[in-house]
């Protein structure tokens, strides 16, 4: 068993060496995941991810690894989710135009009611008030207000929220003109609500 444990940590070290040179090497990450899963070397992996994100928080592979570890250990319980929202928010604030941190935040919130995590709306409004206009931020604001509209029974408040969401779409069509096809679609879906 010691021998197996020995060779497993060697494998892990090997992937770390490769990732030191090329932090996004697809095969190294895949092999690392295999070693961790097979030899149950989950301890310390989140710290490894944190180190990589501190070096380059735009490293999409590291974000993917974070999701991989949590899914296979604690899983995304309510408490863990709140923690992860705070974690991702830290990096979103650092670089509001970086897609990886937003993709992670959006990804972990899939299937969740944003109502249960008001800190998300808080983060978005805070950044918007600072005049930040990243498409990921505005895209999230559309989601926030769309959900608020669908949770509303009062028709005039519902309409106010829908209008807010639609206005963000209009803004997005202008500032993220490469993706007008997508934002037009999102806007159409809002009108169909």
């Amino acid at each position: 068993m010691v021998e197996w444990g020995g060779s497993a940590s060697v494998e892990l070290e090997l992937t770390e060496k490769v990732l030191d040179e090329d932090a996004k090497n697809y095969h190294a990450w895949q092999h690392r995941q295999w070693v961790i899963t097979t030899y149950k070397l989950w301890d310390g992996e989140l710290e490894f991810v944190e180190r990589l994100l501190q070096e380059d928080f735009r490293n999409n592979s590291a974000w993917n690894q974070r999701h991989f570890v949590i899914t296979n250990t604690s899983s995304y319980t309510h408490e863990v989710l709140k923690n992860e929202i705070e974690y991702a928010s830290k990096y979103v604030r650092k670089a509001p135009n970086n897609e990886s941190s937003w993709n992670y935040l959006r990804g972990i919130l899939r299937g969740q009611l944003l109502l249960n995590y008001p800190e998300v709306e808080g983060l978005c409004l805070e950044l918007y008030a600072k005049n930040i206009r990243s498409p990921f931020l505005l895209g999230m604001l559309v989601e926030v207000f769309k959900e608020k509209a669908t949770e509303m029974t009062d028709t005039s408040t519902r309409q106010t929220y829908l209008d807010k969401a639609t206005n963000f779409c209009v803004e997005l069509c202008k500032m993220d003109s490469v993706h007008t096809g997508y934002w037009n679609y999102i806007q159409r879906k809002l009108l169909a609500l």
Partner: protein
Amino acid sequence: LKMGTPVKDVELPKNAPSSLLLQKHSDYIEAFEKNKDDYEYCMTEFLRVSGVYWGLTAMDLMGQLHRMNKEEVLHFVEGCQHPCGGFGPTHQQDPHLLYTLSAIQILTLYDSLDVIDAEQVVKYIVSLQQEDGSFYGDHWGEVDTRFSFCSLACLALMGRLNAINVDKAVKFVLSCMNFDGGFGSVPGSESHAGQVYCCVGALAIAGALYHVDADQLGWWLAERQLPSGGLNGRPEKLPDVCYSWWVLSSLKMIGRIHWIDKEKLEHFIMASQDEETGGFSDRPGDWVDPFHTLFGLGGLSLLGNKQVKPVNPVFCMPQDVLDRIGLKVKLLDSV
């Protein structure tokens, strides 16, 4: 306005080509296949049959297939098949699913499936499917969703899809779906546009596209477009012409190709042509190869360029070839 930090991208050179240099490309491919002493030709021997598939398909898309030596190709492909049914990349090289698919694609292009042992190919593919529905690439046991695509595409082209357990194959592919809506090579692996193409293609062939979250995946794919107009394969990577295929065909299969700025992408693909040698490279100014030439032409075809034949987004083969064999794969409706 605070947008945050700069994006990893390239700048298109001002004097880059802006129109399609069809004659140059067909001359390039024809010469590439003929110059068997050429350095690059020799260095790509380890994937020869795939190289032949890229060259022939590119020529057919340009309406120039007749310039290639059909007899020579068929003789070559025949010699790549092993008794187990699988094909190696060239003679006396071990068989693998990747090369088996290229071989079947070439034979379908030439309407010559009968020159090989098709039944044995089916047996070979069936032997590679695992309990969890995944596929080994060969008997050495590497698992990757690319091999799921190779298997399903091969069998579909031969009209033998039901030889394998399609439900389990679908189940495995779906287990590779990530939190961002994309797909990786194995469960847990990072989303990557090449893997997305393979997974979406496999699901399309299996009639299981409805499992995909088309809105979420469509957005992830649309985000591959950079300010230069080119597409990358995952966040914070440089654009590459081959992603004009992997990303665009995936978007086409899920009915959301219009989520890409077509003009800007076309501009990027055109700029990646080499005016002197012909052919396309991964990005403007780099060296050309048949791989990027096929995917550049394929991307342009999907964008609606009329100088190239319509290409099928699932199989990366001319649509008229699939029409000829009556193979129809339903895609998601355009939204």
